[in-house]
């Protein structure tokens, strides 16, 4: 139960990316009427899944403990994918923001953010319990 094991790293990375996603949602909602503005989306789940390598399908066997494991790992340079949404109905002034969809996705992002914070608290709480001689 390390402090910085894969799961904690995934949770903290997830926190950071969800904050960035909230920024993009705010931007999309604020610019829902701006001519020519295209909705922006952030996708970090894929990069995170690859870094986590949950089912360990990408890990390679190493013959020496000092050899790097070429599969998972690499939380330091996680690059999220920020792109402009090409789907969606484009209105005559060139804007393709669907405000209701943005609000729904923002609500989901908020819920997952809360869940992430709760899970971090649970893991930290268990660690503290173990340190505190279980009293």
């Amino acid at each position, binding site marked *: *139960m390390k402090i910085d094991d894969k799961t904690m790293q995934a949770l903290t990375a997830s926190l950071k990316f969800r904050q960035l996603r909230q920024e993009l949602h705010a931007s999309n909602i604020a610019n829902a009427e701006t001519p020519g503005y295209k909705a922006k989306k952030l996708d970090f789940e894929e990069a995170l899944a690859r870094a986590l390598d949950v089912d360990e399908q990408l890990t390679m066997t190493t013959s020496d403990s000092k050899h790097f494991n070429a599969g998972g790992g690499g939380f330091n340079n996680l690059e999220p994918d920020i792109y402009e949404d090409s789907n969606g109905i484009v209105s005559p002034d060139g804007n393709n923001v669907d405000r209701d969809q943005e609000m729904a996705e923002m609500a989901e992002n908020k819920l997952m953010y809360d869940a992430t914070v709760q899970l971090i608290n649970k893991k930290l709480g268990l660690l503290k319990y173990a340190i505190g001689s279980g009293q």
Partner: protein
Amino acid sequence: MSIENVGNMNKMLNNYSTQDWTKSASIDQASLPNFNELNINAAKGATAPQSFSEIMAASLAEVNNMQVEANKAIQKLASGQTKNVSETMLAVENAEIAFKTMNQVRMKVIEAYKEIMRMQM
């Protein structure tokens, strides 16, 4: 309730003699389950009684396994492979309860050990 049904019921009742009833109601020592061995057998799949340290080791492995599973569930949730938050929360909670129970058992064992060491010989 036709005559035929009554006749059938009569036949059924005659087939079950009172002797059969009492025989199955008597307690047969050999067929009673051995409660002491039940839990151990379920956990280890062996038939011989296990030593206490082996039981502890098995339970520790189980608790650790639950932690690993909970971690995997968290990773799946964080990377978007599952949207089921309740499942993840339950897995984490289970792992936490198992760990805390294990810890209580540990404390009791230590307490018992101290108690034994205090016994005057």
